[in-house]
């Protein structure tokens, strides 16, 4: 019996978990093994100017163009399923800076030929603001599901009929303060998008999303939303989130939330998990039966207690929340006792409590809170009910 008598599927099973080094050797065994192993060998590619000693020479840059050509070839390109493009720290006057636009075009050209690409990450750090080409994601990438771009402009679709079938989109425009455009969402097929992570410098980017509320409302399956903003207010956030009907999981990183009017309807009624600042608590429906996990990234038990007392809860307790994460300011530990006990009394269903102690105070370069956890643990033992098992 020869190896040809074993079915190819079986060889694929054997090969699928092999380390990369072994796969390269399998690739060199015979035509059959070569064909079977190409899917694994060319599955993943990383485009970036290599940081070797010759990285800044013309020859090294030339090799990058050859690299892009190799991966674009008909034999290799269809096997690529994951791709990363990185062009970071393009310092002015360097060889990379000189060739950056052409190099990026060559990389993006290769990407456009990866017709089975499922995941694409692009990251540019371009402090010198060289004019770089935008990323075009056209219909050739019909299998693309995860797109993570940072510092890269996403070119508008040339045809409005083409909608990207992305399940997971992270879009961080870290250099530009331009708006993302009101047609941003129209580039994506609403039946696919599950997770959206947006980070924009533009102060008004929530307003950019708002004009097309009809488009937003069609994103029924968008369950996870992460927003990184500079400054916002509850009204804007509320308007933005209320248009996405399916949000289960909200993460908010914001420099400042301006105080103001709190709308009467709750923000994201289907919310199950919230991670973000306490300022949004008045807008959350803490009495909701689905909100289970609360992760607070600022304030401390004193502030939380004040917020909880300010809002009027239906049954005066938060019945559904089972997991709470919050900060404890070590400075207030002497007071933690009563604050924490009173705060926790709002959460009778709590099963998991995570406390992160923080301090900005240092003595001899060492954070002074290093000695405090024990004290806190001692206090917690008094505060928290101890469950005895018979």
């Amino acid at each position, binding site marked *: *019996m*020869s*190896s040809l*008598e*074993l079915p190819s599927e*079986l060889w694929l*099973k*054997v*090969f699928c*978990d*092999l*380390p*990369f*080094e*072994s796969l*390269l*050797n*399998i*690739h*060199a*065994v*015979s*035509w*059959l*093994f*070569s064909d079977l192993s190409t899917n694994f*060998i*060319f599955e*993943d*590619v*990383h485009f970036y100017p*290599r940081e070797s000693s010759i990285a800044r020479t013309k020859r090294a840059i030339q090799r990058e163009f050859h*690299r892009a050509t*190799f*991966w674009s070839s008909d034999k*290799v390109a269809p096997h690529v399923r994951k791709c990363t493009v990185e062009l970071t720290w393009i310092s002015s006057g360097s060889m990379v800076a000189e060739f950056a636009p052409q190099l990026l075009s060559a990389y993006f050209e290769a990407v456009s030929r990866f017709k089975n690409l499922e995941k694409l990450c692009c990251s540019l750090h371009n402090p010198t603001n060289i004019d770089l080409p935008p990323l075009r994601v056209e219909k050739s990438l019909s299998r693309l599901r995860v797109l993570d771009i940072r510092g890269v402009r996403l070119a508008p679709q040339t045809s409005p009929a083409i909608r990207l079938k992305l399940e997971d989109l992270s879009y961080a425009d870290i250099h530009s303060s331009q708006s993302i455009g009101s047609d941003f969402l129209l580039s994506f097929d609403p039946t696919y998008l599950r997770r959206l992570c947006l980070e924009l410098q533009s102060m008004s980017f929530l307003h950019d999303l708002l004009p097309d509320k009809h488009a937003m409302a069609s994103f029924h399956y968008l369950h996870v939303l992460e927003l990184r903003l500079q400054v916002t207010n509850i009204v804007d956030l509320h308007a933005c989130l209320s248009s996405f009907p399916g949000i289960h999981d909200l993460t908010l990183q914001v420099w400042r939330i301006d105080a103001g009017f709190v709308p009467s309807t709750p923000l994201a009624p289907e919310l199950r998990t919230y991670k973000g600042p306490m300022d949004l608590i008045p807008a959350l429906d803490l009495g909701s039966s689905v909100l289970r996990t609360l992760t607070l990234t600022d304030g401390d038990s004193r502030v939380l207690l004040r917020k909880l007392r300010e809002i009027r809860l239906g049954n005066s307790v938060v019945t559904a929340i089972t997991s709470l994460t919050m900060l404890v300011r070590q400075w207030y530990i002497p007071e933690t006792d009563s604050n924490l006990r009173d705060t926790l009394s709002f959460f009778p269903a709590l099963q998991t409590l995570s406390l992160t102690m923080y301090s900005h105070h240092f003595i001899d370069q060492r954070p002074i809170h290093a000695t405090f956890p024990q004290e806190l643990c001692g206090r917690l033992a008094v505060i928290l009910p101890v469950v005895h098992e018979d």
Partner: protein
Amino acid sequence: MVLLVTSDNEQFQTEKDIVERSVLIKNMLEDVGESDQPIPLPNVSSSVLKKVTQPSTGPTEIDVRGRYLSTASTTVESPSRPPILEQSQDETRKRTTDISEWDQKFITVDQEMLFEIILAANYLDIKSLLCRRWLQDGSQHDQGARPPEEIRKLFNIVNDFTPEEEAQIKKENEWAEDR
């Protein structure tokens, strides 16, 4: 104990925790619950099942790490369990032994049996058995991946590349390595 019946109607009494390394048998046992009913394995012959399940007293020919050219001492798993079912690297129970005798035994594995074991492993859904290590380990101790020539010998594969094609594959591997 679990009663297994092979394609040639032989019966095997085997310890439950050993046979449960096979996802297929584990699922079957879960489906039938506590029962003395024999489990039929119509795709596995008795000779293959013996290799797969029999606890051995020493390294057997199917307990191959693929170091068949090596004569150096190396670490192998304790032989108290059927080595073929070992979870390889995850196992902590190890002992040191001279593998030269074991190597000789390995060389005697005929091609047919090797493929039957792979087929049985696939049917029984035993991941650790899919001979990955034979392809993974080089002939020299700690040498890394097994070179193509050794893989050809192991599976009796003819090198059907022309020298030009071989050079081309080498080039492709260079790009792939520097991906």
